[in-house]
């Protein structure tokens, strides 16, 4: 549980298009790392390469290394399915399985991993729903379809689904961008809670959110149209928001951008 990432010279491509160039970044365990930067600079692309979801797109590939506690997840002996089982992901739009019951949604990952014991599954479902601050709202309707919840509830259901398998790392791509302020706060609180057990990487367009929830912030930027995105700087969140070392970072966080 709660492993560290070391990203070394990572170059990411969509077919011929070079989307992100030479990222070097360390993500410590039990820590929240935020990715910020303008639209199209490759934040999601980098995030998706951390659990090998990137290669789901046709023609997509990476060069370089992504070490999870020292082991390269892109080594030829590693099965991407196994990687995704240990690195959870929460998407921008909530995507529970709509016909599946709430309970089955939460334990879907465990079932894929072959757990069949009903008692164990029920236990995990409750623990994960509590962990995602959703238990009280859904405990009376665990057998109802997951598609029947509100957007904020669905997103917390997706978080419960991701943490049910006790992943090493939790990746979140703008998890609050489709939610109202109250649900957003609920999820931010949740992230702070989850940090005790998990390594978290979150992409966000919301500066306040990055400042509130993260320990370290990575700023990505685009040097020009058609150019690959780059990691400009990464540092403690406090430092990035008070005294960044790069001018571009300062311009971006103060809103004086392009």
């Amino acid at each position, binding site marked *: 549980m709660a492993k560290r990432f070391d990203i070394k010279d990572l170059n990411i491509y969509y077919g011929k298009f070079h989307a992100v160039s030479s990222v070097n970044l360390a993500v410590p365990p039990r820590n929240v790392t935020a990715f910020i930067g303008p639209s199209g600079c490759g934040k999601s692309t980098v995030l998706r390469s951390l659990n090998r979801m990137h290669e789901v797109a046709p023609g997509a590939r990476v060069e370089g290394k992504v070490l999870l506690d020292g082991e390269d997840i892109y080594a030829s002996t590693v099965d991407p399915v196994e990687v995704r089982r240990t690195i959870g992901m929460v998407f921008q739009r909530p995507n529970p399985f709509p016909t599946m019951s709430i309970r089955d949604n939460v334990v879907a990952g465990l079932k*894929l991993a072959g757990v069949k014991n009903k008692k164990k599954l029920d236990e995990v479902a409750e623990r994960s729903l509590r962990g995602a601050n959703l238990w009280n709202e859904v405990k009376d309707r665990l057998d109802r379809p997951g598609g029947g919840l509100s957007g904020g509830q669905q997103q917390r259901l997706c978080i419960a689904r991701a943490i049910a398998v006790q992943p090493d790392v939790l990746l979140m791509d703008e998890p609050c961008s489709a939610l109202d302020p109250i649900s957003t706060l609920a999820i931010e609180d949740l992230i702070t809670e989850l940090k005790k057990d998990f390594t978290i990487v979150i992409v966000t367009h919301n500066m306040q959110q990055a400042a509130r929830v993260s320990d370290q912030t990575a700023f990505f930027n685009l040097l020009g149209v058609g150019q690959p995105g780059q990691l400009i700087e990464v540092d403690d969140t406090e430092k990035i928001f008070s005294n960044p070392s790069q001018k571009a970072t300062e311009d971006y966080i103060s809103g004086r951008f392009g």
Partner: protein
Amino acid sequence: MTDNVTGSSPPARSTGRRRGDGIFRSMTTGSSLVIVVSIGLIGLFLLIQAVPSLQANTINFFTSAEWSTGDVGNLAFGIRDLLVVTVLSSLLALAIAMPIAMGIALFLTHYLPPKIAQPFAYVIDLLAAVPSIVFGLWGAKVLGPSLEPIATFLNENLSWIPLFSDGNVSLSGGGNIFTAGIVLAIMILPIITAVSREVFRQTPAMQIEGALALGATRWEMIRTTVLPFGRSGYIAGSMLGLGRALGETVAVLIILRSASSSSTFSFFDGGYTFASKIASAAPEFSEPLSTGAYIAAGLVLFVFTFAVNALARYIAGRGKAKAS
């Protein structure tokens, strides 16, 4: 409207739009009425023509297998065997075509790269363009004889299952329901595949990614997202196929050998389906009373097909209600 501070133009515009809605609504209501009324009229026509013959019938219409309509003074016709042959051949076709169509549709949408899938899909669609008379000739002259050893094997080894027991025609030449069912399966494959392909393709990418990100293999992803999403469409497509198989006429007429004894509920029976029976007698439709016997059979096929469709709609609708 009194509290509308923006003036009179928005209400005026909305009345205009409402008028458009009204015209559109009466057009759609009108055309659906036309369809319902014509279906009703067809049913009524069949009924009116059939009733005198049914009244003159000397045996039970539903439970007897005899069919003699030559002597108008002594009509004796029953649809039992027609129903058995129709249902057996169509169900066999469906049982073969449904899994194959699902496999092809999944393969085309979620395994093959789109560039290769496109021409492949086109070839399957082409099957739908082959005239049924060609399928019939092929079934009777090529497929039937070459299925003979397989049919013999099944008959010899599985005859304890009623469906594979001895039929009422000889196995040689393959003029039986077994051959007809397989030919029908090929004929309905394109429609089931095409409908399934469309629904499987529309599975939301978000859901597919959600499953993959949980560590689902491709097949597990399909099981958790594509199949639940496409279920009702797949069933609806299969029912379209079943409708076609139930009503298929000329191919079945050519393939099935006529039998001298009544049906044994076996795949190795010959005989007639509703449609092929009616078609076989078409040249002799001059005497209204004997024609009415065939029309009564047609009426049963009509109602039966209707019921199958309603059932399919119910199943598909139930799947959707669950999903929302």
